[in-house]
């Protein structure tokens, strides 16, 4: 089991490395580099100049910037010269990829092109916002999904059950942006209900208790948006699986032995119906870690989703690659976690079985 786990983790790390390397190469090959973002827009008249910005002077500025950021080095150990018949050239260790790998092995994830700050120093506080939010959303959504699925799997379905089913189906087709905006306009709007804060800070003289209360209230809307967004994805398949399991022979036997419908669902159908849900749930983790960008933009939260989206728009490669490593790592770890949980819950899948 340990050997299997080590091999699985090793494969996951290798895959994460490959993905990050690919992104490293591709990002630098894209048209329009960081110099397009860092230097003033060509033809901007808002800052009058004494001398004309010619193509040559602009190229000189771009070259100086590329040199400062280390982008003047060849991209990889071997590169092909320009033109259709360009020659392959060997550059040795003096290339961008080698410098990146060497820094990474020393624990240095690089420096942001935009402000020269260490990438980890930027990612860490953003994770401190996103991780609690995403974890709380995942746990709340999982708990709610469990309760709702047990309710929806009951027969016969009443009027309320139909309504919940329809509501969840409606939520499933609603884009997260629309959902979050709807909640914002409903619950943080002076014209409707001004119940929850959506921006700003707690007053500077707040006590620890008030501060905690403020942040709980501040997190309510983003949390609600995320929970409602993932709830149908978790609930509807689980409810369907539960209904399927209740038709199975063992469920009939259990009922014949005198168990109530609720007992059959909880004790017998649920353990079997939960298995497929594990993959869905573990898939949610990386989605929540990097995919909360919409919620972070709308509710002005300084999380990783926003950090990485802005980095991508600004061609801030070191941050983008770190974000990809983070997301890929989370996804691969989630897959490993799903495998481990499967093995624990279903003995038939164990290597020795």
């Amino acid at each position, binding site marked *: 089991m340990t050997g299997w786990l080590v091999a699985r983790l090793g494969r996951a790390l290798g895959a994460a490395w490959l993905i990050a390397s690919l992104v490293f190469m591709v990002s630098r090959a894209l*048209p*329009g*580099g960081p110099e*397009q*973002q*860092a*230097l*003033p*827009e*060509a*033809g*901007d*008249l*808002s*800052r*009058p*100049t*004494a*001398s*004309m*910005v*010619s*193509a040559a*002077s*602009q190229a000189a*500025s771009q070259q*100086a*910037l590329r*040199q*400062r950021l280390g982008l003047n080095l060849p991209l990889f150990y071997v590169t092909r010269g320009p033109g259709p018949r360009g020659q392959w050239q060997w550059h040795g260790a003096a290339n961008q990829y080698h410098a990146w790998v060497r820094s990474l092995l020393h624990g240095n994830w690089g420096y942001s092109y*935009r*402000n*020269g*700050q260490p990438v980890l120093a*930027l990612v860490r506080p*953003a994770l401190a916002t996103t991780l609690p939010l995403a974890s709380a959303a995942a746990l709340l959504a999982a708990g709610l999904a469990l309760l709702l699925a047990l309710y929806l799997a009951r027969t016969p379905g009443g009027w309320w059950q139909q309504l919940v089913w329809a509501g969840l189906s409606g939520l499933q087709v609603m884009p997260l942006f629309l959902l979050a*905006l709807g909640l*914002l*306009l409903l619950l*943080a*709007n*002076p*014209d409707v*209900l*001004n*119940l929850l*804060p*959506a*921006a*700003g*800070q707690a007053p500077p003289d707040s006590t620890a208790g008030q501060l905690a209360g403020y942040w709980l209230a501040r997190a309510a809307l983003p949390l609600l948006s995320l929970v409602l967004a993932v709830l149908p994805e978790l609930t509807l398949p689980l409810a369907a699986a539960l209904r399927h399991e209740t038709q199975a022979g063992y469920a009939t036997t259990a009922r014949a032995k005198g168990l109530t419908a609720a007992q059959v669902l909880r004790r017998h159908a649920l353990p079997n119906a939960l298995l497929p849900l594990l993959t869905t749930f573990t898939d949610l983790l990386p989605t929540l870690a990097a995919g909360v960008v919409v919620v972070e*933009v*709308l*509710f*002005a939260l*300084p999380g990783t989703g*926003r*950090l990485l989206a*802005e980095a991508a*728009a600004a061609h801030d490669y070191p941050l983008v690659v770190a974000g990809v490593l983070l997301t890929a790592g989370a996804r691969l770890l989630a897959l490993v976690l799903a495998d481990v949980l499967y093995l624990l819950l279903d003995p038939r899948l164990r290597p020795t079985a």
Partner: protein
Amino acid sequence: MKYFWLGSLFALLGGACSSPPAKLTSAPVRIRWVRDPETLDPLALPNQSAVDASNLLHLSLLQVDYEKNAYAPALAAGWPQLSYQGDSLTLVHYELRSAAAWDDGHPVLASDIDFTLKLMHCPGLPNENSREQYGFIRQVRIDAANPRRFTLVCRSRSAETAAISGDFPVLPEASLDPAHTLRRLPLATLQDWPATRPPDPAVAAVVQRYQRANLARQPSHLPGCGPYRLASWQPNHEVRFERKAHWWADKLPAPPLVLQARPHALVYEILPDDAAAALALRRHDIDVYPQVPARIFKQLQAAPTAKEDFVFYTKQSYDILMVGFNTQRATLRDRRTRLALSRLLDPVGLLAATQLGQGARTVGLLPPGNQFYNDSLPLPTYAPAQAMTLLQQAGWHRGADGHWRQAGSAAPLAVALRYRAEDATFATVGLQFQAAAAQVGIAVTLLPGESTVISSYLQAGDFDMYVRLIKGSPLGLNFATILHSQAIGAGNFTRFGRPDTDRLLEAIATEGNLPRKRRLLRRFQALLQEEMPLLPLFFLPYRLAASRQLQHVVASRLKPGYTAAALAWPATPAPAH
């Protein structure tokens, strides 16, 4: 219990609709920023938020007076005097205010100006922008008798040399180069230093010290001479500035607007979404919402308590929405074809559709009301019939299939229009043009794209037409950057340029005599309409919404559209409604 719940709900709703509590004078002024400043390094300043922050922490020789929309002396004691040396050098004579001092009490001296200009040319620092901007200043001659008096020797004869020579944040030499090691290296030597040659040891030491100071995140590591200090910064969330208790300009008897700093604290809330920012204003989480989009502005004005809570300002900005033509494309080389296509754009309709009709149409690149505006020219209008006549004059013939072709060519007239996808205004222009062109038999392909990709295409000349926003300014009238033949491949996307037009643009940039300058600029605007390398559609408005309680709100035509340091809460708070 049921009634208690209902009662609570009504109480909440009632509370929501009530006016904000009166603010104390010491209360912070909360302002919306659309994005994080990213870095507070005074040499970099990559976005408007960073520029706003820099104006609070540092001072320049001249700063923008947002009330007059012109530069005004800040660290400089008065407007600089100009003299000329030879054919190409302008000497700008400055004297610093005697009261100007750093936080540590040391006076601001000419040697600090010299040092700051040298920092702009030290390799390894994020100074590429300022190097390009201030590379025309070749020498700082410090008066031996007065350490506050100096002369900037500028390689320029531009009429605006004085104004543009003093708008950079000044940094203290004593903190970064206490041994004055850079003084032995003339500014020109640093400017001409070959990129391949290792930097001078003195330069390397200063660069190391500068990098260690980490001004990008910790500007307080260096004494400043601006009125505020950075109190806290939560990236992508909130930046807080606090007023210095003892600031040198407080001693001035009648400080000008650029040296006024009233709020005890300024808090910038970073709210990227416009709808969320509007709600934050309605909920009084912020007090100032600058650069309000048209749709949100209308909604805010229509809100039930808007008139009691907020004041709304609209100022015509210097930002021009324009459509450009690639004058080197075979189909667009004839000016009559460009003129014909320009008649298919509807500035009046577009102004109404995208800006609530606010903003100003223009005949050229100057705003109406400017002293150089050519009011004898007609405003561009939507005229499809005229477009067809012009196409015929340019040698195009409309076939039975409705498309236009030139003799000997089977390819019909068709154009591709590039624009940045993130701005809905550009897309509206594209769609209007496409619909109008389709009616006269011209196929238009819309090619929206990511901003840096679009910039690359435009600089490489890979386009037929483009929609763009030119950020303008009244502070200089140098259009060579966008229309001179030497700027092709840089800022001249239209690739327009002839020897005579180049001479005209150069003359405009250097002419100091007002009547002659007026004649040149009027000719320039007429030339734009004749040759049509680009069509200015209209000047955009800046919209500002601010709390009604705030005093001294200076709404400006220049970005950011207001003066943060001038704002104040009333000394005697007005009673809450």
